[in-house]
Protein backbone atom coordinates (compact mmCIF):
# COMPACT_ATOMS: atom_id res chain seq x y z
CA UNK A 1 0.00 0.00 0.00
CA UNK A 2 1.30 3.49 -0.88
CA UNK A 3 2.13 5.69 2.06
CA UNK A 4 3.51 9.20 2.31
CA UNK A 5 2.55 12.84 2.37
CA UNK A 6 1.64 15.18 -0.45
CA UNK A 7 2.23 18.78 0.56
CA UNK A 8 -0.37 20.79 -1.37
CA UNK A 9 0.17 24.53 -1.68
CA UNK A 10 -2.73 26.34 -3.28
CA UNK A 11 -4.41 29.67 -3.94
CA UNK A 12 -7.67 30.47 -2.16
CA UNK A 13 -9.41 30.88 -5.50
CA UNK A 14 -9.29 27.11 -6.15
CA UNK A 15 -10.66 26.15 -2.73
CA UNK A 16 -13.89 24.55 -3.90
CA UNK A 17 -12.43 22.65 -6.84
CA UNK A 18 -9.51 21.23 -4.84
CA UNK A 19 -11.75 20.32 -1.88
CA UNK A 20 -14.06 18.50 -4.29
CA UNK A 21 -11.20 16.50 -5.82
CA UNK A 22 -9.50 15.59 -2.57
CA UNK A 23 -12.73 14.53 -0.86
CA UNK A 24 -13.57 12.11 -3.67
CA UNK A 25 -10.15 10.57 -4.17
CA UNK A 26 -10.12 7.03 -2.81
CA UNK A 27 -6.32 6.90 -2.65
CA UNK A 28 -6.20 9.61 0.03
CA UNK A 29 -6.35 8.43 3.63
CA UNK A 30 -6.58 11.82 5.32
CA UNK A 31 -6.61 15.53 4.49
CA UNK A 32 -4.90 17.88 6.95
CA UNK A 33 -5.37 21.62 6.53
CA UNK A 34 -3.20 24.27 8.13
CA UNK A 35 -5.54 26.76 9.81
CA UNK A 36 -5.38 30.35 8.57
CA UNK A 37 -7.83 33.06 7.57
CA UNK A 38 -7.26 32.00 3.95
CA UNK A 39 -8.08 28.33 4.51
CA UNK A 40 -11.38 28.93 6.30
CA UNK A 41 -13.66 28.38 3.30
CA UNK A 42 -11.54 25.49 2.06
CA UNK A 43 -11.88 23.75 5.43
CA UNK A 44 -15.62 24.11 5.20
CA UNK A 45 -15.71 22.56 1.75
CA UNK A 46 -13.47 19.65 2.75
CA UNK A 47 -15.46 19.00 5.92
CA UNK A 48 -18.64 18.96 3.88
CA UNK A 49 -17.16 16.52 1.37
CA UNK A 50 -16.84 13.65 3.80
CA UNK A 51 -13.74 11.57 4.44
CA UNK A 52 -11.04 11.88 7.09
CA UNK A 53 -10.12 15.48 7.74
CA UNK A 54 -8.33 17.46 10.41
CA UNK A 55 -7.30 21.04 11.02
CA UNK A 56 -3.82 21.88 12.25
CA UNK A 57 -2.81 25.10 13.95
CA UNK A 58 0.71 24.62 12.63
CA UNK A 59 2.28 22.31 10.00
CA UNK A 60 4.61 21.07 12.74
CA UNK A 61 1.60 19.49 14.45
CA UNK A 62 1.30 17.06 11.55
CA UNK A 63 1.75 13.31 12.12
CA UNK A 64 1.50 10.83 9.21
CA UNK A 65 -1.51 8.56 9.14
CA UNK A 66 0.31 5.60 7.66
CA UNK A 67 -1.52 5.93 4.33
CA UNK A 68 -1.57 8.71 1.73
CA UNK A 69 -1.81 12.05 3.49
CA UNK A 70 -2.43 15.42 1.92
CA UNK A 71 -1.17 18.36 3.99
CA UNK A 72 -2.71 21.58 2.66
CA UNK A 73 -1.61 25.16 2.98
CA UNK A 74 -3.83 27.85 1.42
CA UNK A 75 -2.48 31.27 0.44
CA UNK A 76 -4.50 34.42 -0.18
CA UNK A 77 -5.87 35.42 -3.56
CA UNK A 78 -4.18 37.92 -5.89
CA UNK A 79 -0.64 37.40 -4.57
CA UNK A 80 0.45 37.35 -8.23
CA UNK A 81 -0.17 41.10 -8.46
CA UNK A 82 3.24 41.66 -6.90
CA UNK A 83 5.70 39.12 -8.27
CA UNK A 84 7.86 39.10 -5.18
CA UNK A 85 4.84 38.52 -2.91
CA UNK A 86 3.81 35.38 -4.77
CA UNK A 87 7.33 34.01 -5.03
CA UNK A 88 8.13 34.72 -1.40
CA UNK A 89 4.74 33.51 -0.17
CA UNK A 90 5.02 30.26 -2.10
CA UNK A 91 8.64 29.75 -1.05
CA UNK A 92 7.88 30.30 2.63
CA UNK A 93 4.80 28.06 2.68
CA UNK A 94 6.49 25.34 0.60
CA UNK A 95 9.47 25.31 2.96
CA UNK A 96 7.13 24.79 5.92
CA UNK A 97 5.25 21.99 4.13
CA UNK A 98 8.48 20.36 2.99
CA UNK A 99 9.40 19.58 6.59
CA UNK A 100 6.58 17.02 6.60
CA UNK A 101 5.91 16.14 2.96
CA UNK A 102 7.47 13.73 0.50
CA UNK A 103 6.11 15.45 -2.61
CA UNK A 104 5.07 19.06 -3.20
CA UNK A 105 1.98 19.69 -5.33
CA UNK A 106 1.34 23.24 -6.48
CA UNK A 107 -2.18 24.58 -6.90
CA UNK A 108 -0.69 27.37 -9.02
CA UNK A 109 0.10 27.82 -12.67
CA UNK A 110 2.69 30.19 -14.04
CA UNK A 111 0.47 33.05 -12.82
CA UNK A 112 1.81 35.77 -15.10
CA UNK A 113 5.17 33.98 -15.42
CA UNK A 114 5.89 34.51 -11.72
CA UNK A 115 6.10 30.71 -11.28
CA UNK A 116 7.16 29.87 -14.84
CA UNK A 117 10.19 28.07 -13.42
CA UNK A 118 9.07 26.42 -10.16
CA UNK A 119 12.39 24.59 -9.80
CA UNK A 120 14.21 27.91 -9.71
CA UNK A 121 11.83 29.30 -7.07
CA UNK A 122 11.58 26.11 -4.98
CA UNK A 123 14.53 23.96 -6.00
CA UNK A 124 16.12 24.06 -2.57
CA UNK A 125 13.20 22.44 -0.75
CA UNK A 126 14.49 19.04 -1.83
CA UNK A 127 11.19 17.45 -2.91
CA UNK A 128 9.74 16.42 -6.26
CA UNK A 129 7.53 19.34 -7.40
CA UNK A 130 4.31 18.51 -9.22
CA UNK A 131 2.65 21.29 -11.22
CA UNK A 132 -0.54 21.45 -13.29
CA UNK A 133 0.18 21.01 -17.00
CA UNK A 134 -1.49 21.31 -20.37
CA UNK A 135 -1.85 18.18 -22.49
CA UNK A 136 1.37 19.11 -24.30
CA UNK A 137 3.28 19.13 -21.00
CA UNK A 138 3.65 22.89 -20.72
CA UNK A 139 2.87 24.39 -17.33
CA UNK A 140 -0.68 25.73 -17.14
CA UNK A 141 -0.86 29.51 -17.36
CA UNK A 142 -3.11 30.24 -14.41
CA UNK A 143 -6.25 29.23 -12.52
CA UNK A 144 -8.51 30.30 -15.38
CA UNK A 145 -6.77 28.10 -17.93
CA UNK A 146 -6.70 25.33 -15.34
CA UNK A 147 -10.47 25.16 -14.83
CA UNK A 148 -11.15 25.68 -18.52
CA UNK A 149 -9.15 22.55 -19.30
CA UNK A 150 -6.05 24.17 -20.75
CA UNK A 151 -4.63 27.11 -22.67
CA UNK A 152 -6.30 26.11 -25.93
CA UNK A 153 -9.71 26.26 -24.29
CA UNK A 154 -8.86 29.71 -22.97
CA UNK A 155 -7.80 30.90 -26.41
CA UNK A 156 -10.98 29.51 -27.93
CA UNK A 157 -12.95 31.79 -25.61
CA UNK A 158 -10.91 34.96 -26.05
CA UNK A 159 -10.80 34.49 -29.81
CA UNK A 160 -14.59 34.49 -29.65
CA UNK A 161 -14.70 37.58 -27.38
CA UNK A 162 -11.41 39.11 -26.29
CA UNK A 163 -13.03 41.26 -23.62
CA UNK A 164 -14.06 38.28 -21.48
CA UNK A 165 -14.00 38.12 -17.71
CA UNK A 166 -13.97 34.53 -16.46
CA UNK A 167 -16.07 33.49 -13.46
CA UNK A 168 -15.77 30.50 -11.14
CA UNK A 169 -17.47 30.02 -7.77
CA UNK A 170 -14.14 30.70 -6.05
CA UNK A 171 -13.49 33.83 -8.02
CA UNK A 172 -16.98 35.15 -7.28
CA UNK A 173 -16.48 34.53 -3.57
CA UNK A 174 -13.43 36.79 -3.62
CA UNK A 175 -14.22 39.12 -6.50
CA UNK A 176 -14.32 42.37 -4.67
CA UNK A 177 -10.89 41.72 -3.12
CA UNK A 178 -9.51 40.42 -6.40
CA UNK A 179 -10.73 43.28 -8.53
CA UNK A 180 -9.60 45.99 -6.15
CA UNK A 181 -6.15 44.35 -5.86
CA UNK A 182 -5.85 43.36 -9.55
CA UNK A 183 -6.94 46.70 -10.89
CA UNK A 184 -5.87 49.01 -8.10
CA UNK A 185 -9.37 50.47 -8.09
CA UNK A 186 -10.70 52.19 -5.01
CA UNK A 187 -14.31 51.20 -5.57
CA UNK A 188 -16.79 49.43 -7.87
CA UNK A 189 -17.59 52.47 -10.06
CA UNK A 190 -13.85 52.79 -10.74
CA UNK A 191 -13.71 49.10 -11.64
CA UNK A 192 -16.60 49.64 -14.04
CA UNK A 193 -14.84 52.61 -15.58
CA UNK A 194 -11.73 50.48 -16.11
CA UNK A 195 -13.75 47.66 -17.67
CA UNK A 196 -15.53 50.07 -20.01
CA UNK A 197 -12.31 51.86 -20.89
CA UNK A 198 -10.44 48.64 -21.59
CA UNK A 199 -13.21 46.92 -23.53
CA UNK A 200 -14.44 44.09 -21.32
CA UNK A 201 -17.93 43.06 -22.38
CA UNK A 202 -18.60 39.45 -21.44
CA UNK A 203 -18.76 37.54 -18.17
CA UNK A 204 -18.20 33.83 -18.78
CA UNK A 205 -19.29 31.26 -16.21
CA UNK A 206 -16.86 28.34 -16.21
CA UNK A 207 -19.00 25.42 -15.04
CA UNK A 208 -16.96 22.57 -13.58
CA UNK A 209 -20.08 21.19 -11.83
CA UNK A 210 -18.46 22.03 -8.50
CA UNK A 211 -20.47 23.95 -5.95
CA UNK A 212 -24.06 25.08 -5.83
CA UNK A 213 -25.21 25.73 -9.43
CA UNK A 214 -28.06 28.03 -8.37
CA UNK A 215 -25.80 30.19 -6.25
CA UNK A 216 -23.17 30.24 -9.02
CA UNK A 217 -25.78 31.42 -11.53
CA UNK A 218 -27.22 34.06 -9.18
CA UNK A 219 -23.82 35.48 -8.26
CA UNK A 220 -22.74 35.46 -11.90
CA UNK A 221 -25.86 37.34 -12.93
CA UNK A 222 -25.28 39.88 -10.18
CA UNK A 223 -21.69 40.38 -11.30
CA UNK A 224 -22.69 40.72 -14.95
CA UNK A 225 -25.40 43.21 -14.07
CA UNK A 226 -23.04 45.29 -11.94
CA UNK A 227 -20.68 45.78 -14.87
CA UNK A 228 -23.23 45.62 -17.70
CA UNK A 229 -21.60 42.53 -19.21
CA UNK A 230 -23.49 39.96 -21.18
CA UNK A 231 -23.40 36.56 -19.50
CA UNK A 232 -22.35 33.31 -21.13
CA UNK A 233 -21.58 29.83 -19.88
CA UNK A 234 -19.03 27.26 -20.86
CA UNK A 235 -18.20 23.81 -19.54
CA UNK A 236 -15.09 23.70 -17.39
CA UNK A 237 -13.02 20.70 -16.40
CA UNK A 238 -11.07 19.46 -13.41
CA UNK A 239 -9.07 16.95 -15.45
CA UNK A 240 -5.85 18.93 -15.25
CA UNK A 241 -6.08 19.04 -11.46
CA UNK A 242 -7.09 15.37 -11.39
CA UNK A 243 -4.10 14.47 -13.53
CA UNK A 244 -1.82 16.48 -11.31
CA UNK A 245 -3.14 14.75 -8.17
CA UNK A 246 -2.67 11.35 -9.82
CA UNK A 247 0.90 12.29 -10.68
CA UNK A 248 1.49 13.30 -7.07
CA UNK A 249 0.18 9.95 -5.81
CA UNK A 250 2.19 8.05 -8.41
CA UNK A 251 5.32 9.94 -7.44
CA UNK A 252 4.67 9.05 -3.79
CA UNK A 253 4.31 5.44 -4.83
CA UNK A 254 7.64 5.49 -6.67
CA UNK A 255 9.36 7.08 -3.67
CA UNK A 256 7.75 4.47 -1.46
CA UNK A 257 9.13 1.68 -3.63
CA UNK A 258 12.60 3.20 -3.49
CA UNK A 259 12.42 3.30 0.28
CA UNK A 260 11.55 -0.39 0.10
Amino acid at each position, binding site marked *: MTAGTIGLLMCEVLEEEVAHLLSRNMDISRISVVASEFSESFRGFVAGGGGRFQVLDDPDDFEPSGGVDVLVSVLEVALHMVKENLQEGVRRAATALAQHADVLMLGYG*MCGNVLADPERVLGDIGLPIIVPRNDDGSIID*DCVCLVLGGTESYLEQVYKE*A*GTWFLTPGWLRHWETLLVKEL*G*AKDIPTVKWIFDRTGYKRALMVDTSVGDPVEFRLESEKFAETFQFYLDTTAGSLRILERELEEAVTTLSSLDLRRG
Partner: protein
Amino acid sequence: MASEETYQQLVDAVVEGNPASAASLAEGALAGGAGAYEIIEKALIPAMNIVSGMYDRKEYYLPQMLISSDAFYAAFEKVKGGLTGEQARGKGKVVIGVVEGDIHDIGKNLVKTVLEANGFICVDMGRDVPIEDYLDKVAEESPDILMLSTLMTPTMLSMKRTVDGLVEDGLRDKVKVGIGGGPISEEFRKKIGADFYGDNEKEALAWANVVAGEVA
Protein backbone atom coordinates in the same frame (compact mmCIF):
# COMPACT_ATOMS: atom_id res chain seq x y z
CA MET B 1 9.72 77.34 -28.85
CA ALA B 2 7.93 76.86 -25.53
CA SER B 3 9.41 77.66 -22.13
CA GLU B 4 10.70 74.98 -19.76
CA GLU B 5 7.91 76.02 -17.43
CA THR B 6 5.32 75.27 -20.11
CA TYR B 7 6.83 71.88 -20.77
CA GLN B 8 6.84 71.12 -17.04
CA GLN B 9 3.19 72.14 -16.77
CA LEU B 10 2.39 69.82 -19.66
CA VAL B 11 4.32 66.98 -18.02
CA ASP B 12 2.39 67.59 -14.80
CA ALA B 13 -0.94 67.63 -16.61
CA VAL B 14 -0.23 64.23 -18.15
CA VAL B 15 1.19 62.71 -14.98
CA GLU B 16 -1.72 64.00 -12.92
CA GLY B 17 -4.19 62.82 -15.54
CA ASN B 18 -5.81 66.05 -16.68
CA PRO B 19 -6.75 65.65 -20.36
CA ALA B 20 -8.32 69.10 -20.77
CA SER B 21 -5.34 70.87 -19.28
CA ALA B 22 -2.87 68.73 -21.24
CA ALA B 23 -4.67 69.47 -24.51
CA SER B 24 -4.83 73.18 -23.78
CA LEU B 25 -1.16 73.39 -22.84
CA ALA B 26 -0.08 71.44 -25.90
CA GLU B 27 -2.20 73.62 -28.15
CA GLY B 28 -0.79 76.73 -26.48
CA ALA B 29 2.78 75.54 -26.91
CA LEU B 30 2.17 74.84 -30.59
CA ALA B 31 0.56 78.27 -31.07
CA GLY B 32 3.53 79.82 -29.32
CA GLY B 33 5.88 78.44 -31.93
CA ALA B 34 7.06 75.17 -30.42
CA GLY B 35 7.50 72.32 -32.85
CA ALA B 36 5.28 69.25 -32.57
CA TYR B 37 8.23 66.92 -32.34
CA GLU B 38 9.79 69.02 -29.58
CA ILE B 39 6.57 69.06 -27.55
CA ILE B 40 6.36 65.28 -27.82
CA GLU B 41 10.03 64.72 -26.99
CA LYS B 42 10.34 67.30 -24.19
CA ALA B 43 7.02 66.81 -22.45
CA LEU B 44 4.72 64.01 -23.58
CA ILE B 45 7.12 61.10 -23.70
CA PRO B 46 8.96 62.06 -20.49
CA ALA B 47 5.56 62.37 -18.81
CA MET B 48 4.58 58.82 -19.77
CA ASN B 49 7.98 57.57 -18.64
CA ILE B 50 7.26 59.09 -15.24
CA VAL B 51 3.84 57.42 -15.20
CA SER B 52 5.35 54.05 -16.17
CA GLY B 53 7.89 54.37 -13.39
CA MET B 54 5.20 55.17 -10.86
CA TYR B 55 3.22 52.15 -12.06
CA ASP B 56 6.25 49.88 -11.70
CA ARG B 57 6.80 51.18 -8.15
CA LYS B 58 3.12 50.61 -7.30
CA GLU B 59 2.61 54.34 -6.74
CA TYR B 60 0.19 54.33 -9.63
CA TYR B 61 -2.22 51.56 -10.54
CA LEU B 62 -4.22 50.86 -13.65
CA PRO B 63 -6.83 53.63 -13.17
CA GLN B 64 -4.13 56.29 -12.92
CA MET B 65 -2.28 54.82 -15.92
CA LEU B 66 -5.45 54.99 -17.99
CA ILE B 67 -6.24 58.57 -16.97
CA SER B 68 -2.69 59.70 -17.70
CA SER B 69 -2.87 57.88 -21.01
CA ASP B 70 -6.04 59.85 -21.81
CA ALA B 71 -4.23 63.09 -20.99
CA PHE B 72 -1.27 62.04 -23.12
CA TYR B 73 -3.45 61.37 -26.16
CA ALA B 74 -5.51 64.51 -25.64
CA ALA B 75 -2.28 66.48 -25.98
CA PHE B 76 -0.89 64.28 -28.74
CA GLU B 77 -3.99 64.77 -30.88
CA LYS B 78 -3.44 68.52 -30.71
CA VAL B 79 0.16 68.36 -31.93
CA LYS B 80 0.46 65.35 -34.21
CA GLY B 81 -0.74 67.27 -37.23
CA GLY B 82 2.32 69.44 -36.84
CA LEU B 83 4.74 66.59 -37.46
CA THR B 84 6.47 67.55 -40.71
CA GLY B 85 9.56 66.89 -42.72
CA GLU B 86 11.29 63.68 -41.84
CA GLN B 87 8.65 62.82 -39.27
CA ALA B 88 5.88 62.92 -41.86
CA ARG B 89 7.85 61.30 -44.71
CA GLY B 90 8.68 58.33 -42.57
CA LYS B 91 12.02 56.61 -42.15
CA GLY B 92 10.38 53.25 -42.03
CA LYS B 93 7.00 51.58 -42.02
CA VAL B 94 5.73 49.65 -39.01
CA VAL B 95 2.65 47.48 -38.73
CA ILE B 96 1.78 47.39 -35.05
CA GLY B 97 -0.94 45.81 -32.96
CA VAL B 98 -2.06 43.71 -30.02
CA VAL B 99 -2.36 39.99 -30.73
CA GLU B 100 -5.54 38.03 -31.20
CA GLY B 101 -7.46 37.46 -27.97
CA ASP B 102 -5.98 40.43 -26.10
CA ILE B 103 -7.57 43.85 -25.61
CA HIS B 104 -4.87 45.58 -23.55
CA ASP B 105 -3.26 48.29 -25.65
CA ILE B 106 -1.68 50.98 -23.46
CA GLY B 107 1.84 49.70 -24.10
CA LYS B 108 1.24 49.25 -27.81
CA ASN B 109 -0.18 52.76 -28.10
CA LEU B 110 2.82 54.23 -26.34
CA VAL B 111 5.26 52.43 -28.64
CA LYS B 112 3.27 53.53 -31.67
CA THR B 113 3.27 57.14 -30.54
CA VAL B 114 7.01 57.15 -29.89
CA LEU B 115 7.69 55.59 -33.28
CA GLU B 116 5.43 58.09 -35.07
CA ALA B 117 7.01 60.99 -33.22
CA ASN B 118 10.38 59.77 -34.37
CA GLY B 119 9.68 59.47 -38.04
CA PHE B 120 8.11 56.09 -38.56
CA ILE B 121 4.86 55.54 -40.41
CA CYS B 122 2.73 53.27 -38.28
CA VAL B 123 -0.13 51.15 -39.53
CA ASP B 124 -2.04 50.57 -36.31
CA MET B 125 -3.99 47.31 -36.45
CA GLY B 126 -5.57 47.93 -33.06
CA ARG B 127 -6.16 45.12 -30.62
CA ASP B 128 -7.46 41.54 -30.70
CA VAL B 129 -6.21 41.35 -34.26
CA PRO B 130 -6.75 37.98 -35.95
CA ILE B 131 -3.55 36.31 -37.04
CA GLU B 132 -4.66 36.22 -40.66
CA ASP B 133 -5.19 39.99 -40.63
CA TYR B 134 -1.56 40.54 -39.64
CA LEU B 135 -0.40 38.25 -42.42
CA ASP B 136 -2.64 39.98 -44.97
CA LYS B 137 -1.47 43.42 -43.85
CA VAL B 138 2.22 42.47 -44.03
CA ALA B 139 1.67 41.11 -47.55
CA GLU B 140 -0.24 44.25 -48.55
CA GLU B 141 1.92 46.95 -46.92
CA SER B 142 5.40 45.41 -47.11
CA PRO B 143 6.40 47.05 -43.81
CA ASP B 144 9.94 47.09 -42.54
CA ILE B 145 8.78 46.02 -39.10
CA LEU B 146 5.91 44.10 -37.53
CA MET B 147 5.47 44.93 -33.83
CA LEU B 148 3.32 42.65 -31.71
CA SER B 149 2.18 43.14 -28.14
CA THR B 150 0.39 41.09 -25.49
CA LEU B 151 -0.18 41.41 -21.76
CA MET B 152 -1.16 37.84 -20.92
CA THR B 153 0.65 34.52 -20.97
CA PRO B 154 -2.03 32.46 -22.82
CA THR B 155 -2.09 34.90 -25.73
CA MET B 156 1.65 34.57 -26.15
CA LEU B 157 0.58 31.60 -28.29
CA SER B 158 -1.13 34.06 -30.65
CA MET B 159 2.22 35.81 -30.99
CA LYS B 160 3.98 32.54 -31.82
CA ARG B 161 1.28 31.61 -34.33
CA THR B 162 1.57 34.97 -36.06
CA VAL B 163 5.30 34.48 -36.53
CA ASP B 164 4.69 30.89 -37.69
CA GLY B 165 2.13 32.26 -40.15
CA LEU B 166 4.72 34.62 -41.61
CA VAL B 167 7.01 31.65 -42.18
CA GLU B 168 4.25 29.56 -43.78
CA ASP B 169 3.23 32.40 -46.09
CA GLY B 170 6.80 33.05 -47.19
CA LEU B 171 6.82 36.50 -45.58
CA ARG B 172 9.19 35.97 -42.68
CA ASP B 173 12.35 37.12 -44.41
CA LYS B 174 10.59 40.23 -45.75
CA VAL B 175 9.88 41.81 -42.36
CA LYS B 176 11.58 42.25 -39.00
CA VAL B 177 9.44 41.16 -36.04
CA GLY B 178 9.56 42.90 -32.67
CA ILE B 179 7.59 41.73 -29.63
CA GLY B 180 6.76 43.20 -26.26
CA GLY B 181 4.40 43.11 -23.29
CA GLY B 182 4.37 42.13 -19.63
CA PRO B 183 5.06 38.38 -19.87
CA ILE B 184 7.42 38.57 -22.85
CA SER B 185 11.09 37.75 -22.45
CA GLU B 186 14.27 37.34 -24.45
CA GLU B 187 13.88 33.60 -23.95
CA PHE B 188 10.45 33.70 -25.59
CA ARG B 189 11.77 35.83 -28.43
CA LYS B 190 14.36 33.21 -29.25
CA LYS B 191 11.80 30.43 -28.91
CA ILE B 192 9.43 31.89 -31.51
CA GLY B 193 12.11 33.30 -33.79
CA ALA B 194 11.27 36.99 -33.45
CA ASP B 195 14.01 39.53 -34.14
CA PHE B 196 13.62 41.76 -31.13
CA TYR B 197 12.19 41.86 -27.63
CA GLY B 198 11.86 45.16 -25.79
CA ASP B 199 10.89 46.08 -22.29
CA ASN B 200 9.64 49.59 -23.11
CA GLU B 201 9.06 52.12 -25.86
CA LYS B 202 12.62 53.50 -25.67
CA GLU B 203 14.09 50.10 -26.46
CA ALA B 204 11.56 49.62 -29.24
CA LEU B 205 12.59 52.95 -30.81
CA ALA B 206 16.30 52.19 -30.53
CA TRP B 207 15.81 48.91 -32.34
CA ALA B 208 13.52 50.41 -34.98
CA ASN B 209 16.19 53.02 -35.70
CA VAL B 210 18.72 50.24 -36.23
CA VAL B 211 16.36 48.51 -38.65
CA ALA B 212 15.71 51.82 -40.42
CA GLY B 213 19.44 52.26 -40.81
CA GLU B 214 19.73 48.78 -42.26
CA VAL B 215 17.05 49.31 -44.87
CA ALA B 216 17.96 52.92 -45.77
